Structures are given as C-alpha cells and as structure tokens.
C-alpha cells in the first residue's frame, strides 16, 4: 500500500497551503488544515487505528462523523490528555499526538489479541455468569478484566485546561447545520427571530460538504456560501460550529458542548478548551441528519470495510483516495453514488453488490453505464484479510432473498463500501420526550409525536432527498417564527431549488444471509464498539431474554460510548427476525444524554477548586489564622478546630484547651450558630408547635433549650431560644441546620399556618458570638461591662441581658454547651474582632485560652450533650435519647407528637443513647464502630448498635464515648464489644451518658 498515493492532487475542502504535522502512536505524519484526524490517517495509508474492546481485533475507520465506533483514540499525554475521542470528530492541528486504544504495544501487534483466541469462551452475559460466584473471587477477576478492557485510561493529574459556561435564551434553536438546518435558520432569521444554529462539525454545511451527488456540486457550495453570509449579516443570529448538542432536557432546555480550542494548539490558558452552552429556547428545530446503517455479514469489521457515505465524504470533502480496488455492498440506491465517486477518482470498482434482485434506479443506470458490474441479488458472505481487506466472497441470494444459494466467488478489493439504509438521528427528539414509529418505506425509526415546542426537519425525520431537506427546513423555520408571533418576510431569500431523482425503496436486510449457521461462521458484528455479534443476540434470545432493553444489557450491544449509533437498529431488526415479528413490535431502546461523550471539565466549568462551593468565615477568622488555628469545615463555615502552640500535637492542644475551660477560662468563636429572629403576635403559638416543650410561660429575658422534631417524630434540630419581648424571640439553631430550620419554619407558616402572624429573619451573619467558658469567666466579663450585673442572683443561668460590652451594644446570654459557668456575648459583626480581642485582653490575667471545636466537642461529650447530625441520624427520637423530660405531656399538639407513640416508636429494642467506658481507659473507640454483645456468635454477628462520639477526656483522664445501642437504657452496666478494623476487639461497659457534673452545679453556680 505504501506506493499508493492516498491523497488526491486536487479537490476537497482541505487547505493544501497549510500542511500540519502530527503523530500517531509516535510516528510522524502529515495532514492539512481542514482534515480530521481520521481523514489524515487515511490519507497516510493508516488502516489499523485501534483494537476492539473484547476480542482485540484490528479495526479501522468505519464512518466519518459522530457515528464512528471503531477509531477511538487518546489525544495527548499527561494531565491534559483526552481519552476516548473519535478520530472522525477530532479536527487536525499542528503537533497533535494521537494514540490507539485497547492495544499494547501497538495496534498492529497487540498482545491482547490472544484473548480473541479464547473468544468462544466469552459468550454474552459472560461477566454475569462467570464472575458472580464465588463472591470473594471477584476481586481477582476485576484486576484482570480492567487491564484487558475499557476505552483508554483516565489522566492521572488534575486537568490543566480551563472550561467556560454560558447561558443563552433564544427564540429558535436549530440543531444541525446541514441543508435543512440552514434553511430553517434562514427562514426564522429573516422573520427577525433570535436564532442560534449549532453544528458539531468544523464547518457548517452537513451533507453539502461531502455529497456531490444530490445536487450538482456547484449549486450546493454556492448556496451554502450565500446562506452563511446571509446568516452572518443577521444581528440576532448566532452560528456555532464545533458545537455538539448533547442533551435535550425539560422545557426546551438544551446543552451544547462547544470546542473552543480543542483544535488549536495553544499553550496559553487565555481561551477555554470547551464552552458549555445552557440554552433555553422558545422553539427548537432538530435538523440532526441521518446516519448510514451498516450491513451485518461475516468479518464485516475488517479494516477497509467502511460506510459508503463515509467513503464519499473522504473522497469529496477530504480529498482522500481510500483504495485501489473497491466493491460496494448495498440494499439501496444511495450507495451507488459512492461507486460513482470512487470511479471518478480512478479507483477500480470491482462490483456493486446489491441484495435487490432488480435495481433499476437512476444511479444504478449511471453506474452500469460506466461499465461497472452490478451483481444483482447478491451478498457478501465473507471478507478476506486481517489488518486490511484484500477481497470478499460473494454469493447469490435465492428467490426468497432470505438465504444464499449456488456458487460463491471471490472479488479482489481493498475497500468494501457498505450501506444498509439510513437511520434518522432521533436521539435528541427522543430525549425531548418525542416518540418514534417504524416506517416500512425507509425501514427506519422516524419521529412520531413530539412533547415539547419543537419540530424535526430533514433526514432526521426521514426526508432523505436534498429537495425534501431544504423544503422541510424552510417550513419548520417559518412555523417556528409564526408560533413565537413573528411575521414572515416572504420577499427575500436565496432559496435553493433542487430536484432530487426519485429513489427506489431500500430492501431492509438486518442480517445478511450466510452459508454457515449463525454462530458457526466468522463473526458477524452488530455493534463494533462493544464487539457484539449477531450470534450473541441469538444466544440471549435462546436464554430467554425478550425485551430489547434486556438484550441490550445482557449482550452489551449499544452500551459503548457511541450508544450504538451504528448497531442498534440492526440489533432490533435481527431480534425481530429471531422472534418472527417486526421492528415496530420490538421498539427502539431509550436514548439518553450525552449524544457524544462530554468531558467532565466542560460540565464542571469554573465550579472547581475554591469556586466549587462558597466558604463562610466569621468576623474573627483573620485572628484565628494569625493565631495558628487549624480549621474544620462545618457546612460552608470554616471553624477553628484547635490552636496548637509551636511544639504541640493536636492531642496536646486539645488537652490544654479542655483543661483551661474546666479550671480557668476559655473563649470560643460561636458566631456560626444559626440565629433566627422571630417576631409577631403569634410567635409563641408557633414555638409551641415547633418545639416539643412548652413556651407560653417563658419570661422575657429568659432562655430555654428546645428540641425540634419532624412530623415523623425524629430529631430535626436543637438549640436555645430566648424571649426578647412579648412578641419577640431569638432562636439559635445548629451551625449546619440554620438554613434547614429557617426553611422548615417558613414552610409551616406559609402553607399550614397561614392564619399565624409571625415574621422570620435570619440574622446569623449579623452577630458575632463569643462564648466565654470556665470558672473564671464571670471575672473576665465583669471587667468588660459596667451596665450588666453578672452575679448569679442578677443574671441566672438560662437568661439574657442587654447592655454594653467593651463599649458596644451587646446581648449577653448565660448559656453553656460545655457544662461550666459560661457567658455568650453577641455584638454586631462589625465589632466582632475588636470585642474578641478585648475579651482576651481582659482575660490575660486568668490565662484565657482560645477554644477550638475539637476541645468543645470533648467537653460537651463529657456532659453527655448530643450533636444533631453526629449523635443522631434522622432515626432518633427524644425518647431514644433519654430526653423525654423535654417532651411536654400537657401540650395538645406539636410537630411530631403523634409519631412518638406509634407502635414502632414505642418498641423497647430501639437504639438508645448511652455512654460507653472502655475497660482499657487508654483506648479511644473509633466513631462509627459497630457494637456486638456476643463475640462468639456465628458470622454474621448481629450488630446491636454503633459508636456516635468518642474522645480522650483530659479532665477524666480516660476515654469516653457516646453510642446508640438497642435497648441501651435498660442494660446500663452490661458489657459490649467493638470489633476493630485491625481484627482486635475492644470491650466496654454501658454507662449513663453524662460523665461530668451530673447535677449541673458548675454551670449554675
């Protein structure tokens, strides 16, 4: 083949003045601007581009667009590599490096092909049958399979490229820039509509770019040029090339992935690699074209077997001479055009093999007129050659057309152009909710009903001639404009007038008859990408699978990244034949986004790294940073975790912070606690319904702890709420629960309790909350205010006072989450840091210590205080927590009340909150550790609970834990066991969960 010139000396849409260098598997090659990687490879005589997934058979380019299922490559190496690209969709650029998939060390010599030898042992359902038992063996199989299969490897480092996203709102969105789409865009644009037309190719034009036969060549390209410049002159029209509409979602929302610089070699990061368009359209016109259907016959996967339309595209658009000797194998008129194209560039066409007994169409006549043999009523029964086709075996069909008879003979060729008819590209139509029907006239599935404001135009709705496509587009554009209330301009327009020759109908042939019984001859591939054969489908049917959706999953037919664009309809037809029914009855499989693979980077856009999620910081954050704090994420908040001194470990720091709180004084930034101001005459009524306890008698200036339940009786949130006035409360929520609680209250007020007059305002960010804890805290706060009396008599536990602290207005709460004498100073966030520093200043003489969340958690666990979301998980009631004391018995109603005495909630073996003390005081249990009560029980050992919180308590000088254990409240004092990951088992005793100051004397003093 090397002596053969694969590039035509003239013609095509490549720019011979712009040569491009690229490599394929390390070999330097040359192409031109305007080439795709596939056309450039063919122009360099490269036949084997990849190996197939399952059998590692050599594979070449089969198509010329997004239907390609063989020529999958990886572009580039390293972090920026793109695995899993179709060579037919990659625009060639200078210094592009492409690599084959599924082969090592090269596609021509592939060790994995040995697997092909064992292919008889890999029937459909192979994975299901072989690897599901014994259970443990999967791990061994998995490694082997993963190495031997898959579509390339993922990059190992973060993607260095930039991706953009844009929202667009348009009147009319046209998908597809072929004759139908362009006509539609022109018509709608002329009426003044805001139009966006997108096409996945590097040029607008679709079939006009490569099909010389339908119109006369000059007309097609002239019209294309004029149309594009007319569109260009319209202010409200956007033309997007390199832009694939990958998904059609609800309410005319579509996603388009636009390649901005994929095809440019650019080291600078100034332009994004791809841009995601999120488009909302009033009206959508799908002009997505059609994909030629392959024929299924023995060894139809050999490199050199190519779709007839692709052959014409490579010749006409890319000036590639793909062969020396060719045959065309078809069941319709269309493919004769490829015979004409091949003949024109000097390729010897050995024969056109037509399954139809008497093809008499105009194109067939033209072919016969050139002296090309037309083998009527014949089929290809084998393809010869391994890495490249070198001949075919043909046989006549009998009169039924369903079997071969007579003698076979061989034809030499290095190219087999095949056509089994056309499949309208209905993917987006189906994604939008549209239905399909089987059209016997074209033997294809075409759009039936539509669900959204959209139309199909051109060959995607089964209009297969240029004449029809242009007319379809015009009508669709006009209808769209009318529907959105625009008046049509009928005066202007360079409307093409074309007369397409009438075509003889296609004769459907899902599986080409072969002299050998199904499964005994060479493989007849239905889906090239997943290596599914006709025999596989027969096996699936024999094993009892009926639905096409089940057969798809069992055989993996259509499960590749191409989603079976080439193979699916043949699979449906073959199944129909096997079951003695028709394709209409079988029905099509579900089409799902993405139409072609979209990089994760495009979907993520700029929402990566620090832009992935907002970060919330308190007004004191800077001080925490300056003081060496490490931070913990709580929801979106950054909270100081602990403040290590230079030589301290985490354990040292937490120890010091805990001891300071218990024996001296500490301060904690509690600003992140949720705060909701509640006002209105019915505020008390609402609180009575929201919380489990009673609120009517709470005095102004006092606080109360409350539990909030869902209607299912499960704990939702907790916190302290203060009464600031007759009709005014301040509710505290957990840090993570603030938004949920706000939404919960709003929901009830707006829907069920519309008669209540209550107003809610979230004030979390408005206040900085500084919690001062420990026996010395009263002395510290006393220095900061001269208008608040901090004595126990004047300012008792669970009350609030207003005054000034360090000169600024403040609300001070006497509440505690750590079980010591504590005050919470709330000041405007604008003063936050200054007041924090004033507190430290005042506390220096008492050794005041900043307290992080870790030590705070230890201290609250010593007190047995729960953290909602850590110790509870949405399946815990107040009773389970042993907190029935906070559930009012006298209130007639509150949210969740009725659920508290559903029979299941009253069960005594529910998991209940208890404390755990390990027998070895040095062992700290892992949180989440599963608890068993009998270590000698048979596997699987019944689990009786799990550890929810666990710490080393500096003050108690031993480990402590909280746990939820079945029936825990009634088995205090009993032993349980916690098996660890390392195989050891820790024994512990169930105890009351309050480990420190059970009487609460310290916080009350």
């Amino acid at each position, binding site marked *: 083949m090397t002596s053969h010139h694969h590039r035509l000396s003239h013609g095509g849409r490549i720019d011979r003045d712009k040569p491009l260098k690229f490599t394929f598997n390390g070999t330097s090659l040359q192409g031109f601007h305007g080439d795709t990687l596939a056309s450039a490879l063919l122009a360099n005589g490269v036949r084997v581009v990849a190996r197939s997934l399952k059998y590692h058979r050599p594979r070449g380019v089969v198509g010329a667009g997004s239907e390609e299922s063989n020529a999958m490559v990886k572009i580039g190496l390293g972090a920026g590599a793109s695995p899993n690209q179709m060579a037919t969709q990659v625009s060639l650029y200078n210094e592009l490096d492409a690599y084959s998939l599924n082969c090592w060390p090269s596609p021509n010599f592939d060790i994995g092909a040995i697997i092909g030898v064992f292919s008889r042992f890999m029937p459909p359902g192979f994975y299901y049958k072989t690897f599901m038992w014994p259970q443990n063996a999967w791990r061994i199989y998995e490694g082997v399979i993963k190495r031997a299969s898959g579509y390339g490897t993922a990059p190992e480092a973060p993607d260095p490229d930039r991706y953009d996203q844009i929202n667009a709102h348009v009147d009319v969105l046209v998908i597809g820039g072929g004759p139908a789409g362009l006509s539609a865009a022109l018509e709608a644009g002329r009426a003044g509509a805001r139009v966006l037309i997108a096409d996945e190719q590097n040029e607008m034009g679709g079939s006009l770019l490569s099909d010389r036969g339908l119109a006369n060549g000059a007309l097609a390209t002239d019209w294309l040029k004029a149309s594009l410049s007319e569109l260009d002159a319209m202010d409200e029209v956007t033309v997007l090339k390199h832009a694939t509409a990958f998904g059609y979602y*609800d*309410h005319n929302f579509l996603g388009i992935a636009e390649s901005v610089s994929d095809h440019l070699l650019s080291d600078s990061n100034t332009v994004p690699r791809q841009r995601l368009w999120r488009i909302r359209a009033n009206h959508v016109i799908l002009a997505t074209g059609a994909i030629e259907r392959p024929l299924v016959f023995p060894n139809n996967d050999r490199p050199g077997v190519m779709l007839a339309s692709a052959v014409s595209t490579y010749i006409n658009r890319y000036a590639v001479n793909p062969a020396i000797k060719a045959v065309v194998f078809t069941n319709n008129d269309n493919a004769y055009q490829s015979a004409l194209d091949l003949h024109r560039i000097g390729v010897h066409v050995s024969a056109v093999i037509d399954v139809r007994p008497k093809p008499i169409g105009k194109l067939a006549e033209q072919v016969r007129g050139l002296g090309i043999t037309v083998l009527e009523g014949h089929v290809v029964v084998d393809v010869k050659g391994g890495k490249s086709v070198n001949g075919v075996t043909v046989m006549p069909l009998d009169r039924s057309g369903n079997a071969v008879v007579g003698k076979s003979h061989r034809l030499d060729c290095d190219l087999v152009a095949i056509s089994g008819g056309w499949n309208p590209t209905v993917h987006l139509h189906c994604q939008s*909710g549209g239905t399909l029907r089987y059209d016997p006239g074209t033997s294809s599935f075409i759009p039936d009903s539509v669900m959204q404001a959209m139309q199909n135009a051109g060959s995607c709705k089964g209009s297969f001639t240029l004449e029809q496509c242009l007319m379809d587009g015009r009508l669709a554009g006009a209808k769209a404009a009318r529907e959105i209330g625009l008046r049509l301009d009928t005066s202007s327009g360079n409307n093409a007038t074309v007369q397409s020759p009438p075509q003889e109908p296609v004769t459907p042939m899902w599986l080409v008859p072969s002299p050998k019984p199904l499964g005994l001859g060479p493989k007849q591939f239905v889906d090239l990408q997943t290596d599914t054969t006709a025999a596989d489908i027969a096996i699936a049917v024999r094993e009892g699978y009926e639905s096409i959706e089940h057969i798809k999953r069992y055989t993996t037919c259509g499960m590749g990244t191409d989603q079976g664009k080439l193979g699916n309809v043949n699979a449906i037809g073959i199944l129909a034949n096997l079951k003695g029914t028709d394709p209409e009855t079988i029905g099509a499989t579900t089409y799902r986004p993405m139409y072609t693979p979209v990089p994760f980077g495009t979907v993520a856009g700029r929402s990566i790294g620090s832009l992935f999620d907002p970060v919330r910081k308190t007004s004191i954050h800077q001080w925490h940073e300056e003081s060496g704090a490490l931070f913990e994420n709580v929801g979106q908040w950054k909270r100081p975790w602990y403040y290590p001194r230079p030589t301290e470990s985490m354990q040292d720091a937490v120890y010091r912070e805990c001891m300071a709180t218990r024996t001296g004084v500490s301060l904690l930034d509690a600003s992140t606690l949720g705060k909701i101001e509640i006002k209105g005459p019915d505020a008390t009524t609402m609180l009575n319904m929201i919380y489990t306890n009673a609120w009517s008698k709470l005095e102004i200036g006092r606080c109360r702890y409350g539990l909030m339940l869902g209607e299912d009786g499960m704990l939702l949130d907790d916190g302290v709420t203060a009464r600031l006035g007759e009709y005014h409360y301040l509710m505290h929520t957990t840090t993570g629960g603030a938004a949920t609680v706000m939404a919960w209250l709003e929901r009830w007020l707006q*829907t*069920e309790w*519309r008669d209540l007059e209550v107003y809610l305002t979230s004030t979390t960010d408005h206040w900085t909350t500084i919690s001062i804890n420990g026996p010395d805290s009263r002395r510290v706060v006393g220095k900061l205010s001269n208008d608040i009396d901090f004595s126990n008599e004047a300012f008792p536990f669970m009350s609030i006072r207003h005054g000034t602290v360090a000169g600024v207005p403040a609300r001070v709460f006497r509440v505690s989450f750590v079980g010591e004498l504590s005050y919470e100073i709330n000041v405007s966030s604008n003063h936050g840091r200054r007041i924090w520093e004033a507190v430290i200043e005042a506390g220096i003489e008492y050794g005041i210590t900043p307290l992080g969340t870790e030590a705070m958690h230890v201290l609250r666990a010593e007190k047995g205080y729960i953290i909602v979301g850590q110790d509870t998980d949405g399946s815990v009631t107040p009773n389970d927590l042993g907190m029935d004391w906070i559930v009012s018995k006298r209130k007639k109603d509150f949210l969740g009340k*009725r*659920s508290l005495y*559903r029979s299941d909630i009253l069960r005594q073996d529910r998991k209940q909150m208890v404390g755990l003390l390990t027998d070895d005081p040095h062992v700290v249990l892992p949180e989440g550790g599963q608890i068993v009560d009998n270590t000698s029980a048979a596997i699987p050992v019944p689990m009786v609970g799990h550890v929810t919180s666990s710490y080393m308590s500096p003050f108690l000088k031993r480990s402590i834990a909280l746990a939820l254990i079945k029936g825990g409240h009634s088995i205090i004092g009993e032993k349980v066991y916690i098996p660890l990951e390392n195989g050891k088992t820790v024994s512990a005793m169930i105890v009351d969960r309050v480990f420190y100051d059970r009487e609460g004397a310290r916080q009350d003093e």
Partner: protein
Amino acid sequence: MLLIPCPWCGPREENEFTYGGEADIVRPVEPDSLTDSEWANYLFMRKNPRGLHHEQWVHTFGCRQWFNVQRDTVTYQITATDNLR
C-alpha cells in the same frame, strides 16, 4: 431542567427552587384522635399519578415563597400555579 413560573418572580430555572412534594395534604386537626395507620397515611402516603399532579414548590433562591403547581408528570408541562393567597 424545568422552567418554573414563580407566581411572584416569573419564570425561573428549576435550580432556584426546592420541591415540596404533593400539595393539599392537610395536617390533621387532632392528631391524637387518629389511629397509627391513619397517622401513617398522613405522614407517608403520597399520590404518584401518571398525568396531572398538584405539588408544592418553594422559590428557595428567590422570593422564598411557597406555592402550588399543577404539573403533568408525563409531559412535565406546568398548567397552573397558585400563590396560596
């Protein structure tokens, strides 16, 4: 992604909203008088129609108002909204 007509703000993208499930579930006036199964019926049982569905939405990232929507679960077409006033 749905385009939801908020009665207060006009048509907005679905990701500004939170779904609230079936509309017109009335909380029993006297829960204590209900049997377990009656209460469970209020708590858990929801319609799942093929066709028109009355449902609640809240414009979380907008006006924060709850409203009712009548939506076809087959076509996803929104045929009516009610601002609850």
